[in-house]
């Protein structure tokens, strides 16, 4: 595949990813020494999913110039779709087990009613909402992981791009979309259990006997594979003429129009593709997190995604991945309560509260001293001398 020959970063990245995956496996509880706990395996797996979301964000922002501050919507929708299936299948299995002891075997509809009651009583309802129509079919749910975020991206993008909204105004619209969605999901009668969200997602139906040690490492591998495949696919896309055109749209939209390209179509394509990628990332993330609720799709979450990509270096695929990995892991460390508090005289710095300050400071420092982000810094170190910008350095 010429993509491996033309761009050194692709095989290097894939190689490092494979090494990383092997390393974690060898230290995992299921297949190795157990140096990495189950919960940390999940953290690493989730981080890989966030890297995938950052990759999607980099495509739409770093390469096409669309600052979407609502991409976590797609991430969350992917999570909700898979969550619905997970909850339905697992709860139904539990219900089936409970009712099996009865003298008269329960009918399918009785099982269904009991499952619904079990899931929705927390919000005071007992019927299946329309949204859960496909939740008993794994096949349909997998399709919907792609279709639901994809459709939202398509509709929103079509409305926004054809009215030629760009720049800050577009970003504000995406924030509005996010806010609207999260408010909608918070309501108890929307059918997604309001702010209780969907829980117990780590319990995989049909895998009751397989312990979390193995499930966690399998999801980790799945996340790594998803990231690797998407990275290669993105690199391939960017190095085609399509990549040249969307970069042209980022830098001079008018020029691209005057060359005869329908800019709206290209933007819609990238935006929708990127939304679907986020949806897939979310579908892999939330079973590892175990729970999803509307808080996850708060407007701030999408802003964090943009911050990760900015710190990592946008317009470079591995930059986005580095940014997401470094910042989200640091975030987990500092807000997880394990970072030692710093006592400065009368002031006590509790990292749980002070992490946003550190993040903001990091963002400012990166902007001032490493405008190409951590990825750019990495380039500089590897290459030693700043070379004349080469046109092929776009991946």
């Amino acid at each position, binding site marked *: 595949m010429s993509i491996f020959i033309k761009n050194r970063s692709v095989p290097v990245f894939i190689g490092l990813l494979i090494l990383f995956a092997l390393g974690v496996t060898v230290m995992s509880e299921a297949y190795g020494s157990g140096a990495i706990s189950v919960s940390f395996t999940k953290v690493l797996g989730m981080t890989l999913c966030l890297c995938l979301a950052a990759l999607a964000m980099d495509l739409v922002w770093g390469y096409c110039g669309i600052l979407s501050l609502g991409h976590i919507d797609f991430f969350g929708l992917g999570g909700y779709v898979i969550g619905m299936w997970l909850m339905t299948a697992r709860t139904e299995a539990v219900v089936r087990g409970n009712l099996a002891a009865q003298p008269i075997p329960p009918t399918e509809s009785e099982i269904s009613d009991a499952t619904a009651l079990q899931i929705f009583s927390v919000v005071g309802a007992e019927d299946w909402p329309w949204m859960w129509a496909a939740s008993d079919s794994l096949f349909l749910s997998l399709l919907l992981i792609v279709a639901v975020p994809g459709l939202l991206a398509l509709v929103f993008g079509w409305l926004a791009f054809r009215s030629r909204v760009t720049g800050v105004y577009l970003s504000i619209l995406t924030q509005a979309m996010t806010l609207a969605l999260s408010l909608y999901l918070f309501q108890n009668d929307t059918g997604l259990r309001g702010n209780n969200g969907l829980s117990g997602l780590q319990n995989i139906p049909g895998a009751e006997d397989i312990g979390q040690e193995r499930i966690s490492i399998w999801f980790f591998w799945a996340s790594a594979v998803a990231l690797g495949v998407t990275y290669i696919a993105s690199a391939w896309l960017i190095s085609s003429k399509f990549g040249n055109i969307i970069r042209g749209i980022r830098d001079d939209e008018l020029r691209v129009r005057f060359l005869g390209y329908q800019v709206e179509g290209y933007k819609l394509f990238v935006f929708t593709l990127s939304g679907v990628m986020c949806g897939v990332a979310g579908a892999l993330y939330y079973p590892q997190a175990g729970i999803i609720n509307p808080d996850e799709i708060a407007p701030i979450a999408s802003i964090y995604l943009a911050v990760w990509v900015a710190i990592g270096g946008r317009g470079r695929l591995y930059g986005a991945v580095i940014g997401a990995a470094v910042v989200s892991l640091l975030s987990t460390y500092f807000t997880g309560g394990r970072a030692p508090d710093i006592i400065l005289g009368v002031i006590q710095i509790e990292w749980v509260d002070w992490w946003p300050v550190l993040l903001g400071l990091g963002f400012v420092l990166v902007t001032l001293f490493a405008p190409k982000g951590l990825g750019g810094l990495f380039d500089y170190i590897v290459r030693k*001398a*700043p*070379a*004349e*910008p080469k046109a092929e350095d776009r991946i």
Partner: protein
Amino acid sequence: MLEIKDLTLHYSGSQILNGVTMNAAQGQVTCVMGTNGGGKTSLMKAISGTHARSGGSVRFDGADLPKLPAHKLAQMGIGYVPQGRMIFPLLTVRENLETGLACLPQAERKIPDRIFEMFPVLKEMENRRGGDLSGGQQQQLAIGRALITRPKLLLMDAPTEGIQPNIIQLIGQVIQQLRDEGEMAIILVEQYFDFAFDLADQFYVLKRGEAVFSTSKAQATRDEVQAAFSL
């Protein structure tokens, strides 16, 4: 007024100026010509401080000039009319001119009438936004703005580019007037040969970042200069 020796300049690893040596005398127009990519605009940027020089020495007004940022050089008397004019589109003509006052001591911050005498259209369009002006009017504004800073050295990069013939004549007259007053050194980067030849006292031709030819009007004929320019 200006003496440059072995000036070099890089753009992130790429060397654009390979050791330029030239002089610009007070009361004279020094013209710099050359092919595209030869380094003319880069030379202007180096002299004005817009882009830092990598090496070489510069003497200005009798003293050695260290690598100073552009705003310091402007205060010291290096005025720059860049290629493309670079007018502030949202500021009015008057406000654009007033930006030049920053180089003057507090007590003298007033737009001299002479600017409006040179360029009457600026008075007419005083309250129009810079971006609403036509190209020719913007060029007059750019020159006026530079003159307000009371430069000892005036750098003009392609002032006739995209300008209609009768305004080109006006600009030529203004440059001649400034030269004849004898206080300023003027460096003119131009591709429009006839305009440049009529005004210049001294010529340099830049090719691949070096001055490959230099002569004064007294020493060479029009044909000789034109030939050197086309080489």
